[in-house]
């Protein structure tokens, strides 16, 4: 690196940058003004609806019509159904704690310090086991609550976490299988991946829920929830495998050859040379797949599970609450938004960071 490239480029002053990006030409000024007006108006409308003219307490529901804004009373009154579904009322603290554990696990796995196979597996197994024990019970004096009664946010997080835990290792196997030098293996894995990628997720979930009982012997069937999760995980893995394969293909062949000359065997080359670099290459795409998967967990509603979307629809299904569907949908939308937006921002942050690394 030469001296010249170390010196920072001259900084343009803030006022000039503003002028360039907002008021470069008369037309630009007009556009900026229109946009500013539009933004202000939309924000005003939203703030007025959501905060200024809204009603917050459940008992004040009769006042909603007059106030004209959002009627958050429905959330105040029915939030337990939205968050917990059919989970027994007095055990709601378990569901809350389980969700908290899962969210902490998600956040922790975004910290680079955890990014070794050992630490990451330990973190997820611990997080997932804690979640499962809290939800299912049967240990430490907790009463048993079977998965049929799980619901709301906890079920959404459970499906997402279970799909990730089964799907990630599977995707690595699929990606490596497709790149195998043995033609039969490569063809077979390729066919498997392409088959699952060509189908809508819903058909796979539907097959898992309805058809598998015909195809598999009784002792292999398990609960409907687990069958759907396995089907979802295979679908996830088929997509993720292609992301990882793209990462594998981007590694210069010299890397693997260097490993060969050092006398490393296949496993060593895969775990020490190929996979670390493949993940580094494909991390943004991998995170993006998680983002998509989180949104797609909502599809399990259709095959009859009571996750947050379905429990939300149940929340305004009765009595005086039926008119307040918009508030409930906005609330659920906001919950999804928080998860999905933070995950996708994290993906974008990783992409920037990695790009800097490559120069």
């Amino acid at each position, binding site marked *: 690196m030469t001296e010249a490239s170390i010196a920072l480029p001259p900084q343009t002053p803030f006022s000039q940058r503003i002028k360039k*990006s907002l008021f470069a030409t008369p037309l630009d000024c007009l556009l*900026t003004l229109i946009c500013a007006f539009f933004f202000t108006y939309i924000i005003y409308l939203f703030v007025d609806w959501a905060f200024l003219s809204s009603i917050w307490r459940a008992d004040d529901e009769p006042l909603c019509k007059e106030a004209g804004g959002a009627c958050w009373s429905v959330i105040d009154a029915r939030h337990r159904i939205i968050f917990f579904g059919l989970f027994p009322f007095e055990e709601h603290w378990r569901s809350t704690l389980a969700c908290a554990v899962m969210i902490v696990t998600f956040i922790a796995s975004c910290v680079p310090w955890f990014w070794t196979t050992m630490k990451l597996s330990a973190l997820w197994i611990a997080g997932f086991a804690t979640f499962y024990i809290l939800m299912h019970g049967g240990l430490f004096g907790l009463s048993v609550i079977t998965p049929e009664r799980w619901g709301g946010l906890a079920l959404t997080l459970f499906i997402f976490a279970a799909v990730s835990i089964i799907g990630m290792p599977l995707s690595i196997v699929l990606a490596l299988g497709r790149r195998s030098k043995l033609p039969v293996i490569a063809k077979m894995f390729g066919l498997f991946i392409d088959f699952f990628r060509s189908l809508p997720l*819903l058909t796979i979930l539907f097959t898992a829920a309805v058809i598998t009982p*015909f195809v598999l012997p009784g002792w292999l069937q398990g609960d409907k929830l687990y069958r759907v999760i396995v089907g979802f995980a295979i679908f996830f893995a088929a997509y993720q495998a292609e992301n990882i394969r793209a990462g594998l293909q981007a590694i210069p062949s010299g890397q693997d050859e260097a490993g060969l000359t050092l006398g490393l065997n296949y496993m060593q080359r895969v775990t020490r040379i190929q996979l670390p670099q493949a993940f580094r290459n494909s991390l943004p795409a991998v995170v993006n797949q998680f983002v998509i998967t989180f949104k797609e967990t909502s599809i399990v509603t259709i095959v009859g599970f009571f996750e947050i979307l379905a429990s939300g*629809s149940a929340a305004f299904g009765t009595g005086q609450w039926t008119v307040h569907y*918009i508030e409930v949908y906005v609330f659920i*939308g906001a919950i999804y*938004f928080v998860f999905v937006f933070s995950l996708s921002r994290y993906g974008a942050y990783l992409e920037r960071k990695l790009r800097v690394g490559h120069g």
Partner: protein
Amino acid sequence: MGSVLGNQKTREIVFQAVVLSVVAALLIGMVMNTRASLEAQSLTTGFGFLERSTGWDFSFSVLPYSISDSYSKTILIGFLNTLLLGFLGISLATIIGVIIGLVRTSKNALFSMLGTVYVEIFRNVPLILQAIFWYSIVTQLPRPKSALSLGDSVFLSGRGLYFPVLNIAMWSVALMILLIIAWLFFLPWLRHKMNHSSSFFLIKRIGWILLPLILVLIGYLARTPDTPLLNMPALKGLNFKGGMRMPPELSALVIAIALYGGAYIGEVVRAGLMSVPKGQIEAGFVNGLKPLHIFSRIRLPLAIRAVLPSLTNQYVQLMKATTIGIVVGFSDLFMIISTSINQSGQTLELLAILMGGFLVINLSIAFVMNSINKKIAIKGYEVKS
């Protein structure tokens, strides 16, 4: 060394043979098990049920139908409904996407922020939630009696959107569509054949003039006798009669897919516009092109080439996403198949049809887009995507 290599090869072949036989054994086991469980429930297999009449009703059809129609016709209707939903949703999503892509690449920071906010809102909320949301909005529109109307010919109410249609037979519409498609495929072939000679342009011009005339002629011949040219919707009693109805299920799904898909396609378009090398644009400036021409002659053509592969991907994804139509009760292929499964019990056959249907749709999209991609590729110039 030779013997080691030979050894290795033998080992590889043996290994592959073992894996292959294990997979085959698993598949055979699954088939045997399926047979056994079907026999245990005394279910018959085979596609004979397709000729039986269904006996149940569904919400929407592009073709006239009755509940005594056969399963095969009902499934065809489901397939056409899915195609219609996909076509409407994807077309609108593309229009929105192009607009959003342009807005996001604008030099004006506030204006481009408008696009960013749009993308972040619609991309980060599940499509299925958006579909349910729009469905509840659309069904809460006023009753037919107090419907919103546009010049007394287009009506928007909680029962759906009503608009006038031509009183012509269904087959002629199909014929017209086929003619247009045939013409669009014929043109490039002819251009290639006649090697851009001046007589090609003459044929092209005559064709473009003749085509609408032929279409009008077909429409005239296929008119339903003794009816006015336009079939206008009108309020009769509690509901509208006549015209064409777009049910709220379809509208809600089209809106949801268009807005959601528009956010994704917008990102694809933005990436395409940004992938055009700066040198190309600067070269345009140097040659004295106007900004508009730099956009229409340099940026846009290069961007289209860069985005086609990812656009194909988005189209296939959106097409697959149409299956969520079942949450609002739109009778698309998936809903028809799942109702058929409940009613007839022919689970495996119907599922095979469903998967086959989506395979056909997705492969067709990929085929068309890849053909376009190949057609417009510039030789020796690869845009990085």
